[in-house]
Structure formats: C-alpha cells, structure tokens
C-alpha cells in the first residue's frame, strides 16, 4: 500500500542522487515480469477490441460503453486502488503502462480510463472517510460505475481560485448552484466529484469537494461539446440547480477540497503524459510502416533523410517522454513529492504527441489528411493533451514555481 499523502508538501522532493528509501535498485529500465506480462495482455486487448472500432466511434461521437465495461472486468478502472476496495492493487507505474497501451489504440478510451481512475478514486483514497471508501470505491474500481470530475467552469479554467459554483450550508448538508464546464463523461458517468466554493472570502482555501450521484435532483447536463478530437470521450457542461448534498458526501474537511484536488492532480498529469506517449507511439508506428512501403523516386521513402530524420526525431522524443512518465510514476509510487516531475512529464509528452502526430501525418502527405488512415484522428486527439489537466502554459508555471523554490531552499538538482 502506498504511503499516505495528504498535502502538497508531503513526501521528500525527488533528488536523484539520494538512495531510494524503498530499498530498490535505483536505476532500472526494465519492467518486472508480472508487469511486462500484464502489458502484453492489455496490448492484445487494446489492439484487438478497441483499435478496430476507434474510427467508427470517432465518426459517431459515441461513448464506448461496452469496451469500457470490458476494461472494468480486466481491472483497468481501478488499477492503483487497493484490492480490498475492489481495485487491482497495483502501482502508478502499472497504471501508466496500461494507459499508454489503451491510448495507442484509442485516445478517447484512455481519457475515460484516466478520468475514472483519477480524481474520484484518488480523492476518496487520500481524503475520504472509511465509510465513504467502502461505499463508493468498489463500484468505481470494478468499472460497474463510472466517475467524473467537475472543476473547470466557463470562466475559470487554469485559474481555479476564480471558481463561482457555490455550496451554501443547508441543515445537515449543502445546496450547490453553478455551472461546470468540460466534464468528461458528463451525462454518462454515475458519480460526480464536484468542487464548489464554501467560503468566498478564503480563495483556494474556501473550496470543498462533494460527491453527487447522477440522479440527484437539480443535476443536469448540457449537449455534448463538438470537439476537434477525442469524440468518444463525451464532454458536457454540468449544471447544478440547488443540488442538495448531505454532509456525509463531502470529501475531507470544509475548505480543503481545492488543495487536496491539486495534490491529487499530480497523478492525473502523469496519466495524461502516458496517454500522450501512447498516441504518439501509434502515429509513429503508422508513419514508419508507411515509409517502409511507399515508393518515390524509385526508392522506399524511408531511405530519404527527409523522411528518416523526422522518424528518428519522433522515436527519440517518444522515448524521452516515456522515460519522464516512468520516472514520475516510479517516484510517486515511492511517496516522493512529484509536482515538478509530473508537470515536466505532462508538458514534454503532450508537446511530443503534437510534434509526432503532425510529423507522422506529413510522412503520409495527402493520404494522411484523409480518414483512410488513422493519423488525422491521432492529430486531432493529441491536440487536447496540451490543454486539459492544465495547459502547457500552466505546466510551465508549475515547473517554474518549483525550480525557484528549489533554488531558494538550496535543493537544486
């Protein structure tokens, strides 16, 4: 079981020259046999069950209920949730390994997997009461129910302290009122983790976290957004019209919701980074296969440096991105503070996915611009990785803040 983490300052910073407190070998680049075996299993499932339907789901913007249920049965919807709460009891490294495989088949599936594995379960594990964990985790971790996270609002995204959704005290609970934006699986999920303002004068420390079931009175959903990509990962607004939430469904103490969510976001960012690696890998493999077959000027185009150099660049950047993801996951599994490492992984991997999908499309030329090949979908799907769970600009803000802190504390690495 992971060491408990309850705030941004918990856990030592990651200093690579120090000894691993868990006692393992410090630098190890292979996956252990169990994880390698599980990865093969997930890859086979992803390539055989998800990849063949991805184009159709994209065209129809259809939420993939059946394959999500199958993923739940495989234990992919609660990878790092302990077995006693119905999860797979594995670690973050396993989670990002599986997420890359799912994303290489279809980014929308990976986003949906990341959402339900992410904050709804993470917040319950880190900050929920035992009663809340026992009630809510087993259906989520087994994939029988699906969780969604509601933070952003139409006028507040990167600046979460500007949230306007209010939670006003009402007897033995709260009344919530406001509009949440960009909610993945909105209208499809069974359980919504909602952040709302309980004390407007306290800024980020006046925000609390609440669990709301889909059928709560006053909860409604907007029409699915018409997005550039990730069409199967349906996104809607969520409207709260005086939704009553009992005290028992507040997670953690009043005013602690935002800080707790931000801490748990570290893991979410590593997940988006892993997803980005998966999309990039799929695009790169497709471009490589095409360059091996397509003939121009009497040769396979991979024999021209104009094509082979972009392929080499793609391979290099993907490897670097995956290593950043694995390092952040590894460190998180050992209880290190990974705010900086998670943001670095997310920033680099999502920018890599943008570069790789674009360069891969270019290898295919006109063919890559059509739906006869999956690359245009990869490009559209990858674009949002630079936006959600904090834009690339916000990742730079986070990294910059962390490195200045290291400088001030003499912890520069």
């Amino acid at each position, binding site marked *: 079981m992971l060491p408990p983490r309850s705030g941004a300052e918990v856990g030592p910073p990651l200093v690579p020259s120090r000894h691993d407190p868990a006692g393992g070998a410090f630098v190890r680049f292979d996956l252990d046999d169990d994880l390698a075996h599980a990865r093969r299993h997930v890859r086979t499932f992803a390539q055989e069950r998800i990849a063949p339907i991805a184009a159709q789901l994209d065209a129809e913007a259809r939420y993939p209920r059946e394959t999500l249920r199958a993923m739940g049965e495989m234990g992919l919807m609660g990878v790092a949730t302990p077995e006693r709460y119905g999860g797979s009891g594995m670690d973050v490294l396993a989670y990002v390994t599986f997420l890359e495989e799912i994303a290489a088949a279809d980014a929308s599936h990976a986003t949906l997997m990341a959402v339900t594995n992410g904050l709804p379960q993470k917040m319950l594990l880190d900050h929920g009461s035992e009663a809340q964990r026992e009630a809510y985790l087993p259906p989520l971790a087994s994939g029988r129910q699906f969780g969604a996270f509601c933070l952003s609002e139409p006028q507040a995204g*990167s600046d979460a302290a500007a949230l306007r959704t209010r939670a006003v005290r009402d007897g033995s609970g709260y009344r919530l009122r406001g509009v949440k934006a960009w909610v993945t699986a909105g209208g499809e999920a069974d359980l919504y983790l909602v952040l709302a303002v309980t004390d407007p004068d306290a800024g980020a420390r006046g925000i609390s976290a609440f669990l709301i079931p889909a059928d709560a009175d006053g909860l409604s959903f907007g029409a699915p957004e018409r997005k*550039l990509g990730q069409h199967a990962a349906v996104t809607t607004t969520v409207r709260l019209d005086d939704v009553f939430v009992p005290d028992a469904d507040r997670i953690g103490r009043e005013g602690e919701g935002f800080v707790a969510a931000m801490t748990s976001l570290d893991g979410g960012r590593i997940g988006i980074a892993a997803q980005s690696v998966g999309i990039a890998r799929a695009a790169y493999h497709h471009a490589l296969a095409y360059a091996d077959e397509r003939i*121009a000027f009497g040769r396979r185009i991979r024999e021209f440096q104009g094509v082979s150099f972009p392929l080499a660049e793609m391979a290099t950047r993907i490897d670097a991105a995956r290593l950043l993801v694995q390092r952040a996951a590894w460190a998180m599994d050992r209880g290190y503070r990974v705010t900086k490492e998670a943001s670095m992984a997310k920033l680099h991997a999502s920018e890599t996915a943008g570069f790789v999908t*674009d360069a891969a499309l*270019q290898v295919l030329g006109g063919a890559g611009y059509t739906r006869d090949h999956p690359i245009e979908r990869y490009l*559209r799907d990858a674009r949002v990785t630079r936006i959600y769970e904090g834009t690339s600009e916000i990742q730079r803000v986070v990294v910059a803040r962390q490195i200045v802190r290291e400088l001030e504390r003499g912890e520069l690495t």
Partner: protein
Amino acid sequence: MIDFSLGPTQKEMQGLARRFARDRIAPVAAQHDRDASYPTDVIDEAARLGLLNLRVPEAQGGLGLGVLDEAIVGEELAFGCMGIYTVLMASDLGVTPLVLHGSENQRDRFLTPLVGGGARLAAFALSEPDAGSDPAAIRTRARREEGGWRLNGRKMWISNGALADFTVVFATSDPERGAAASVALVVPADADGLSWREVHGKLGQRAAPTFEMILDDVHVPEDHLLGEVGDGIRIALSTLDQTRVPVAAGSVGVARRALHEASRYATERKAFGKPIAQHQAIAFKLADMEIRLQTARWQTWHAAWLADAGEPCGHHAAIAKAYASDAAFESASEAVNVLGGYGYVDAYPVAKLLRDVKLNQIYEGTNEIQRLVIARRVIREAEA
C-alpha cells in the same frame, strides 16, 4: 528601387475581398465545414464580383491580374475560410497552365467561357494514387490515335474536379522515357470515359470538394495538347512555381485570422486577476504570431512580385509556401492554446484553422518538396 506600397486598384481589390470575406465567407464557413458542402452561393457571388479566375487574360475577357494581385486577394479570402478560398485558388491553378503555355487559340476556347457568366471552374490533375511528390513517376498513359490522344489512368487529389469545365491532365506518352515523354492535355468535363469519385473524410478544408479522376479510354483532340510532347512536366512545374504563391497567401490569411481570434480572446479572458494578454506567456505568443505573419506576408509578396516581373520565382515561391504554411500551422496551434478548451471545440473558429491549414503544408508540393527545391539551388550555387 524598392517600393512596398500597393497601387490604387490593388487597394480596391483588397478592400473588396476583405468585405466579401467578412460579410459572405466567414458567416457560412463553419456550416460548410460541418456539412462538407460546396458553397454554391459564395462561389457564384465571388464570380459576379470578379474574385474568381483572376488570372484569365484581358484578351480572353478576364481581368488579367497578376500573381501579386492574387496574393493580396487570397490573403483576405482565406481569412474568411481557407477551404472556400481553395475552390477559387484551385480554379486559377487550372487556368495558369493555359495562361503560361496555351496558344492564343487554346486560351480563347478554354478560358473565355470561364469569365463573364457565373461560376465556372477549372482544375489541375498531376498527382496519382502512387505518385505525388515524384511527378516523373506518373503512370497515366496518353496514346496517340487518329486525330488526337487516348488517355487511361487515375489521378488523385483533384480540387474542384467534377465541378470544373475542364481539367489540365498530365500524362506520359511513353512510361520508359519519364519526363521526356510527358504531355499536358486539356480534358473537357463532358469527355466520354471520364468519371470522378469524391474523396470523403478530409481533416479540414471540407468546403472544397476533392476528387479522384478516372480516365477510361478518354479521347481528346490533337489541339488539346499544351506545348509539345515532352513539355508536360515542365508545364506542371512552371505552373506550380507561380501557384505556390497563392497557397502561401492563403496561409498568411489563416495566420492573420489565428492572431485576430487569439488576441481578441486574450484581451477579454481574465485569469489571476488580469486579462491573459497581460501575462507574458500569452503576450509573447501573440508577438511571435505577429512576427510570423509579417515575415510570411513579405516573403509571399516578394515571390509574387518576381513572378509578375517575369523573373524566375520558383525558389522564392518555395520559400514563401513552406514558411507561410509552417508559420500559419504554428500560429493556429498557438491560438488553440490561447483559447484553451474553447480552442478545441467548434463553437469557436480556431480549431478549424488548425485542421484547414494542415493541408497548406501538403498540397501543391509538400513542404519537404519545397525544401528539396530550395536545397537544390543552395547546393548548385555552392558548387558553381
């Protein structure tokens, strides 16, 4: 002498195209993109206003405008919608081989009907399913026969295609001899044996229809041959030298639209207590977008000016095309990030810019091919 000013007619055309883009193109762009529908009304009105087939010479009843004129107009129209501009641009791509290499008689027969009476389009067919960047590898076969030529083969990525009055088709009269046996033939829309298959599922520029052309024993008369046997590839490449300039101009229009949308949003949207334009992370993006925009426009106009002056323009057109389309893609992508989630959904026009302008990096020679063209000259000069 260096003079960067526009003449009175150019300013007038620029104003006309700007108003047309704002009032007629931009309001319907999202709908045509969503439905992948051909913008009949827009193209008809463009034809009436003289914004279609600009390059048809005055002797054939056209405006006889130059490449710079087209670049000025093209930037404005693409600001409204790159896909809709592609319909207009691709027609001049079909017109240009006749302007540069047609006899007076051929121009009279094929170009005169294009002007003065509603929307009439031309098309240009060089690429094939298995030959794009390497035109010498084309397999479409032209065999001599009684009174003319018989064409067989398949052409790919033909903008306007089935909607065009005629298509200039590049073929080979002897596959063994490659470019030396290439021919350029004007194929009228009503030729027997000609059929089209529309390309569906494009990432962007969905208002501009794209076709595969199937030539099954198509007969064209002898006098449909442009130039001589063996001139085909030369005609194609000299055409592209000029028509890459409008591609660059369209890219400039997209880059300007991206900056327009991003700067407007950044001055309204607030985060951390001030408009996001006041945060350097966003302000610097806007500055970089402006730098790319200005640079791309001057490269484009310079190449256009060379073409109009009768100077070799291929090198500079390649620079303009590659630079402007790369710049526009980068600016569109940055604009998406400035708008965040709003940049990713089609309620705002920014995501479409990204999808549309990706094609500018591909058509009329991928940017890799532009770099090949540019590198060849650099190397040749170093060796000389």
